[in-house]
């Protein structure tokens, strides 16, 4: 059980059980729906942009502990950030969970912060999509692919 704790860290379990910024977002400027074709999970990400800055963000939908926690921590991580930094975080998080560490270092000054809690996911290739679904969906929302289905790898 010990190595399972590396995947299911307290921070992940906490955000999985009590996701932050969960619900609709008034005055959203961008929305996208993401599907995980592996399990049928679906989440919607709402974003309110103010110029180049993420002014507000929320999400809705059901999923496993990993995907709910990832979406919840995403909302905390990107709120107030510039779009370029959000994309850096996206690439850095993806590199972290897929084990491509070399790529992480090339992403400049943006710190993963709490998102580093997802490092354990790299030991579970089948669960990478759970950790990245919200990020792909956010990416699509910001790219204006509101109606598109998020690619999950």
């Amino acid at each position, binding site marked *: 059980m010990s190595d399972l704790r590396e*995947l299911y860290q307290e921070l992940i379990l906490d955000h999985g059980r009590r996701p932050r910024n969960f619900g609709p977002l008034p005055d959203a400027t961008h929305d996208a729906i993401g599907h995980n074709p592996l399990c049928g*999970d679906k989440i919607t990400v709402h974003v309110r942009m103010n110029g180049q800055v993420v002014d507000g963000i929320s999400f809705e939908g059901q999923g496993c502990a990993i995907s709910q926690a990832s979406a919840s921590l995403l909302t905390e991580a990107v709120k107030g950030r510039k779009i370029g930094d959000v994309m850096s975080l996206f690439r850095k998080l993806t590199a972290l969970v897929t084990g491509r560490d070399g790529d992480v270092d090339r992403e400049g000054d943006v710190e993963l912060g709490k998102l580093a809690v997802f490092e354990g996911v790299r030991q579970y290739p089948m669960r990478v999509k759970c950790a990245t679904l919200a990020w792909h969906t956010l990416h699509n929302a910001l790219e204006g692919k509101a109606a598109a289905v998020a690619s999950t790898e």
Partner: protein
Amino acid sequence: MSLAARSGLHTGFYDVEKVRADFPILGEIIHGKPLVYLDNAASTQKPRAVLDAVTNYYRHDNANVHRGVHTLSERATIAFEAARKKVAGFVGATDPSEIVFVRGTTEALNLVASSYGSLVLREGDEVVLTQMEHHSNIVPWQMACQRTGARLRVVPILENGELDMQAYASLLGPRTKIVSVTHVSNALGTVNPIAEIVRQAHDAGAKVVVDGAQAIAHGPVDVAALGCDFYAFSGHKMYAPMGIGVLWARRELLDAMPPWQGGGEMILTVSFEETTYNVAPHKFEAGTPDVAGTVGMAAAVDYIESIGRERIAAYEHELIGYAERELLALPGLRLIGTAREKTGVHSFVLDGIHPHDVGTVLDHQGVAVRTGHHCAQPVMERYACAATARASFGIYNTTADVDALIEGLARVRELLG
């Protein structure tokens, strides 16, 4: 204490330990624990007899079939056609030429939807499916309807996981050309009343296609008794290799159906002006077939029959009964699918815990289950859950496997509850 008694069930003569000894993979250690394989509805493991048959074929008999006059080609052809005969007997067909070898159930259903669909479906006609179909028995029919202008009608599922037979009766009519239904639901375990479904469909003048993927390994299958017109199944769900499957169809239907894929084997003569087609089943077997797969399938048939299909059905019936009692004793567990007639699978959800997390934690206990939508998203929608965990059983599973599952689920609660 007899071996059967050690299995913990009352099926006195079923020697499950002897069966287990025939499956080398059951000795695998997963995350430091002995493998408990409860994903048989996705794919079954292979007994030594099947592994040896495939190896021996490649070591001693391999050549292309129906093509050469040399000895190996003759041996391969004899093995291939002997497998066809054996499989015909396995499903109660009297004529081996009614057995078309395909890659699996999906390909068999696509063949019927494409070939038979194009033969009979016209604008305004109807194809009746059920809400519990696997995607492979939905999408090929949607494609056939798009090509022909026919439309789908869907028989709903009752709360307990059985088909709404009243709704079925009301959906049948003069427009109904095809009814395509699963014998056993892969997501719910429901055994459907195929003979009754066929009787009503035939009264309406429709042909019946049966998806037998989840039925073939769990008890006797007799197409004559079922009365259906097509029956599709996969080798890999009956202890045979992956990549081989079967479409059984009535000879007169195969004769009337247009060819599906073109190529070698399916022709009599070819010129650039005109091609004449081979007779069934060769008409539907373009290209070099998976001969080793058919040899493996024949070995699997022998293996299953050496145990006895009635005995397998009786043993598994007791085993899933035991599993149901144990699962229902867990607080917060909801069984999805509680039909009176079930076989093979228990789908379930745990309050407040997503099935994917259940699957990952169980895997750490060495317990393999399927989690997800089981390629049956309409079923998930019916029960308002995006996914379930599914434990599915085979001839080598024991009450100890069920106990390991239950213990694993307690760990899931402990970690994620």
